[in-house]
């Protein structure tokens, strides 16, 4: 009985080998492709973070050296055009995102700038200045400084440390304007980073000291942008600490 079943297989042996080899080849190819995609995901989600961590460490060392070296003015007194791309501007603290949350904000929003940390839109106001200090940050890769941007709430504080100041911004609907504390906009909505945000004229002169964050939205996508607006509420001179960092946030 069994012999009868085996017999025809033998006859087809050569054709069967070819099919089997083809199937195996396709299978191996698919598995390889799957592994490659998983590796890429791992690289994006975690691998890129190592680079940013190393770069942030460097930026932090450099900026601390500049601050203690006592030469050079505070960044808030500089003109927006006098900051070279890629330099560290200020250290960003967001109490809502944890006591250990801090990033050095880099000048520039090019790909290589944002690989190193949250990036300041060139030409927008500097910390503490009249205008709009606009910052873009990654949400899923490169240590994702703005991963939890959706956790931010109205009334939360955003603190920027410069050489001599602590600038505290509060997330809020900016009084007397149509600027909301949070908005989700199209990737081309450049007006969110204007000196006076959310109106059509990029040259309109500002009167308020604002801060704007942009990141991608939804998470893992780039279909839209998640935007947060905040207003300067406190300027504390060092070495005193700002209330937003000393009280439990």
């Amino acid at each position, binding site marked *: 009985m069994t012999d009868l079943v085996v017999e025809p297989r033998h006859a087809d042996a050569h054709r069967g080998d070819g099919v089997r080899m083809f199937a195996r080849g396709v299978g191996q190819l698919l598995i390889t492709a799957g592994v490659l995609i998983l*590796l890429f995901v791992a690289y994006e989600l975690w691998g890129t973070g190592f680079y940013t961590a190393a770069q942030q460490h460097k930026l932090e060392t450099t900026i601390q050296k500049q601050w203690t070296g006592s030469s050079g003015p505070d960044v808030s007194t500089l003109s927006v055009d006098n900051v070279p791309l890629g330099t560290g501007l200020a250290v960003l603290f967001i109490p809502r995102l944890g006591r250990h949350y801090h990033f050095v904000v880099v000048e520039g929003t090019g790909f290589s*700038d*944002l690989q190193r940390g949250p990036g300041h839109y060139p030409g927008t106001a500097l910390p503490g200045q009249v205008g709009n200090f606009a910052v873009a940050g*990654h949400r899923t890769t490169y240590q994702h400084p703005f991963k939890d941007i959706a956790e931010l709430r109205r009334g939360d504080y955003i603190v920027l440390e410069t050489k001599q100041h602590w600038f505290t911004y509060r997330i809020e609907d900016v009084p007397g304007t149509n600027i909301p504390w949070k908005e989700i906009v199209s990737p081309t909505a*450049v007006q969110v980073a204007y000196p006076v945000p959310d109106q059509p004229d990029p040259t309109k002169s500002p009167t308020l000291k604002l801060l704007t964050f942009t990141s991608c939205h939804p998470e893992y996508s*780039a279909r839209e942008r998640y935007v947060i607006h905040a207003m300067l509420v406190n300027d504390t001179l060092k070495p005193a600490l700002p209330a937003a960092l000393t009280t439990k946030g």
Partner: protein
Amino acid sequence: MYVWIWRRLPGGVPAKLFGCLILLFAVLVLLFKFGFPWLEKHVPFNDVTVDQRVTTTPSPSPSPSGSP
């Protein structure tokens, strides 16, 4: 494909295994150093800025005209 590589690797089974490890390591280094950094510039989920241009390729230079 893998069978072919296995056959071409010299030596006995331990040497072949060692060869596999070397090859694997080399492939991973190439991917993480060159392959993935290149590829990520062509996938959209790293776009976090507001920009005039609707494109997934990031600009190497800062945003045009001061305002992004």
